[in-house]
């Protein structure tokens, strides 16, 4: 990898500058190699909100209930009401109250997030241990309890792509700074006592 002499080094640098770094493609540094499709497939698990990335597979809501009871209920509660883990259902209409309950049904904007997160990180004690079929099934069950899929549904990528989450339009891009505190130095107004 090391340049054999200073002339090579200078030529290499000049060539990189001419090519533009965006097209250097590692020729000069000679670091890394092309990833094989098999290697990438094992790790490439992200599912996007436009539906890109869903794997093959399917599962029924009914089977999802069994998966849930076996792998999820201990932390998330028999009725998805939460426990050691957060609540997964309920909270509809609470977001603008003083007791907001952020759940899959009340808060999450995309069903893809639910599938993606279960597949990559759940169950908490044994992440990435469920089959894709089981992930489809249990995601379907959670959506069913939230009133977003019927109890007799068979769930696959196409079904999940069609689910419209209730809070889909509840988000907007960060608009801070949102507070202007004048830099008063003397005899400043002091608001209500800190609470």
């Amino acid at each position, binding site marked *: 990898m090391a340049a054999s002499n200073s002339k090579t080094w200078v030529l290499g640098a000049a060539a990189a500058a001419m090519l533009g770094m965006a097209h250097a493609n590692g020729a000069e540094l000679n670091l890394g190699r092309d990833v094989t499709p098999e290697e990438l497939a094992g790790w490439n698990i992200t599912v996007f909100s436009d539906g890109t990335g869903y794997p093959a597979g399917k599962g029924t809501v009914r089977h999802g209930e069994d998966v849930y009871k076996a792998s999820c209920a201990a932390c998330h509660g028999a009725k998805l009401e939460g426990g050691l883990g957060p609540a997964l259902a309920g909270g509809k209409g609470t977001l603008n109250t003083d007791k907001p309950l952020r759940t899959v049904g009340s808060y999450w904007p995309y069903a893809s*997030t639910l599938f993606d997160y279960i597949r990559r990180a759940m169950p908490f004690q044994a992440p990435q241990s469920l089959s894709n079929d089981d992930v489809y099934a249990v995601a379907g069950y959670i959506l069913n309890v939230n009133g977003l899929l019927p109890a007799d549904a068979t769930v696959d990528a196409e079904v999940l792509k069609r689910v419209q989450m209730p809070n889909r339009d509840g988000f907007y891009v960060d608009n801070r700074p949102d507070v202007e505190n004048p830099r008063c130095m003397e*005899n400043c107004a002091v608001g209500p006592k800190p609470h």
Partner: protein
Amino acid sequence: MEKSPEAASRRRFLAGAGAAAVALGAARPALAQEAAAASPSAGPAGNVPPNVPQWTRSLGEPTVAVPYGKPSKYEVNAIRKLYPGLTEPMSAFSTSPLQELDGIITPNGLHYERHHAGVPQIDPAQHRLIVHGLTEREMIFTMEEIRQFPRESKIYFLECSGNPVFVPPYGKTAAEVTGLVSGSQWGGVRLRTVLEHVGLKKGAKWVVAEGADGAAMTRSIPIEKCLDDVLLAFIQNGEHLRPEQGYPLRLFCPGFEGNMSVKWLRRLQVTDQPAYSKEETSKYTDLMADGRARKFSFVMEAKSIITFPSGTQKLTRKGTHEIRGIAWSGHGKIRAVDVSIDGGRNWKEATLDMPVLSKALTSFRATFDWNGEELMLMSRAVDETGYVQPTLEQLIAVRGRWSTYHNNAIQPWKVSTTGEVTNGRV
């Protein structure tokens, strides 16, 4: 210091002047006796003058008795603690003991922690980074290869997005109030260097970063940030990362909320859209009072905290004391820090220790006189954009109480007539 006009005027500003000096003289002998009685070195061993200390009359520990050095056994308080109220330690956080520290660098063993599925112990020989998606080449790198790219080292702060939340219980100590912030010199490869190495395709707008831990933690970072100052970091304060900080490789996004600096980094997917992962929808979005929520709220805005005197500490004498603290801003350099001892009615600019670096902790100091009266100490950071650190009341007025993240409020510390320091927000 007593004689300089600057110090004198500072004293007039900060305390009731004359009375303090009189009381100081009267109080000193009694307080000095108390301090001597409380000193550990005045115990039975008798290691204080005129006695010759035991450690002067004997040999110490051999050289390299401890191959990796540790703090003195007497430093029992400079430790991380699980955040108050947490019971489940796998998806949890621990705080840096800010009240025990001084300066802009946090020792590696005291850097705050936030893990979503525990701390994996990764063999670097088996760790890989895959870079793929909208790239000219889809590539895989070993750690040995990543460490051979041209490097850079920068001092930056890292802060957890929820440091702290907006609702009680409010913490007792500086660590409990805002100990999810630390500062380090981070070293590694600019992400830009690696993205240019693989070549970006047209339409590349986001990089989705993924960890190799049990949470496979995933965040989407805008390409502009990725081509700016983001690091693929493998060095922290001169040594390889600690496992708690992502060994062997982490992303580091200066000035952005901590969880975007994905630890144990294994994959970068270049895309035309964000992933809308759980950590950028269900979590780390900011719920406003109207029920709608901010997304992609990346930057940690300007903030400061007084670390001395701070909660559970005590002023042991009347007289002149030094306020010490840290300030930081995700938007750049700290321009100034103001301090108040009267609950925000009057402010004075503190002295900033050099260096003052962009997106790094900055140390500040100021003196004040205490004559046994009740005080309310506050600090207020101003960054290079002119932004002034707000009060909690101002933040809640705009956001409500349930936005959870990005609370950069001014922190009040109350000094009682007996010198005890407690959280002024009770």
